[in-house]
């Protein structure tokens, strides 16, 4: 078995129009910038994939990453908890113009919906959002005298994530707080592609230290010395 992929363009070749695409990261930490930019390259060259639904905690920052996808016109809908950032212009413009849809989900509910999809649990009850406008239209159940809102799993066609070490079996580790949504998204997608800073042979990662077991990962592409979204935003970088 060898899940390694030779190039970034090969890694994003099978993401279709209208796909639900999970993108790992929280703000700039753990964001797979090179995979996102490879997808933008493909869109600019071929017009595909378009009309994507993107799942991320945020909705892009500055003029790179998810913000650059939105600017390019590839994204029809964002599912996120916090579509704001130090420079949220890309999303804000499209949203105010009615050109992009938003499904706003409380952050813990977003994480659990993704986890539930990965774990094969179609719905669950949470106290989060009871009695608020984000619970409108959702079933409410009472358990031990307290009300809870029913939330459904959130599945994806493809997840793209950023990891630190990855072996050819797809076992992954993460760097610092870059873990965040990445391990959950690996579980919830039909197909998961990880960019890793170091591609290693099986056995090179101590099994005690594997965070995402390879069963959740379909492809691994090595990106040495990856770019960091927050650093790029602070430099005023633009991806076109």
């Amino acid at each position, binding site marked *: 078995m060898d899940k390694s992929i030779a190039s970034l363009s090969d890694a994003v070749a099978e993401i279709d129009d209208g796909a639900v695409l999970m993108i790992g990261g*929280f*703000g*700039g*930490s*753990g964001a797979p910038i090179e995979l996102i930019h490879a997808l933008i390259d493909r869109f600019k060259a071929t017009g595909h994939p378009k009309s994507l639904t993107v799942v991320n*905690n945020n909705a892009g920052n500055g003029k790179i990453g998810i913000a650059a996808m939105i600017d390019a016109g590839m994204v029809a809908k964002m599912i996120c*908890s*916090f*579509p*704001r*950032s*130090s420079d*949220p212009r890309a*999303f*804000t413009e499209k*949203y*105010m113009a009615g050109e992009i849809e*938003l499904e*706003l*989900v*409380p*952050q*813990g*509910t*977003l*994480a*659990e919906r*993704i*986890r539930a999809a990965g774990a094969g649990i179609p719905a669950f009850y*949470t*106290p*989060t*959002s*009871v*009695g*608020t*406008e*984000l619970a409108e239209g959702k079933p409410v159940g009472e358990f031990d005298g307290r009300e809870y809102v029913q939330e459904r799993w959130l599945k994806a066609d493809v997840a793209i994530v950023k990891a630190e070490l990855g072996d050819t079996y797809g076992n992954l580790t*993460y*760097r*610092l*707080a*870059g*873990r*965040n*949504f*990445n*391990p*959950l998204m690996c579980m919830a997608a039909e197909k998961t592609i990880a960019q890793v800073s170091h591609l290693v042979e099986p056995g090179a990662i101590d099994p005690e230290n594997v*965070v995402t077991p390879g069963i959740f990962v379909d492809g691994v592409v090595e990106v040495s010395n990856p770019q*960091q*979204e*927050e*650093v790029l935003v602070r430099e005023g970088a633009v991806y076109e």
Partner: protein
Amino acid sequence: MTQTGENFPKLNKAQIAWRAAQDIEDGAYVNLGIGFPELVAQYQVEGREAIYHTENGVLGFGQAPEKGKEDWDLINAGKKAITLKPGASFFHHADSFAMVRGGHLDVAILGAFQVSQNGDLANWRVGSKGVPAVGGAMDLVHGAKRVAVLTEHVTKDGKPKLVEKCIFPLTGVGCVTRVYTSLAVVDIKDGRFVLHEKLPDISFDDLQAMTGAELTGKDTAGDLITPDLAD
């Protein structure tokens, strides 16, 4: 201490944060909301150790790093660079919110637009305009064992922030148990505001006049006394 528009003394933000910090027990696991509540960490009581949780998957973080020493993979929920204390840990987002919803956090301290007398909190949006963003606030208010709020007692134009019923969209229902304001410490018990402490220079009646619902506890309230602190 500074003066309000009506020449009432009031606490500055640092003093409100200091007062909230006095109630954090040794060994507590604490989540501080983005912005004003983050100040509480500066006034941790000597001899007590609190462990700070941040939604994006870190327990046991410390102060911001020196300028230029930031590692932007190591941030808090406010997307600010942090450092780690010995004994820190990383975990994914579902575990992070299991800590929250599962009742493992001792205290969450949040900001507020309004708090109602039955403990409803409104702190995520003020109307239907603009881009809505909720983050982890709705999860935090239903998870921590104690949910407290830091706020000015009244808005900039003098309107009460402690009210009978919130008019802004709710973050959570019946979740807040204590409010630290620029004038008082107010508990929420059985659907009522119960004064715990007030600034000694303000009369109960003046405080009632700046509060949007009935205040009880006139005879049992203590004095709210803080050190002088620069904002």
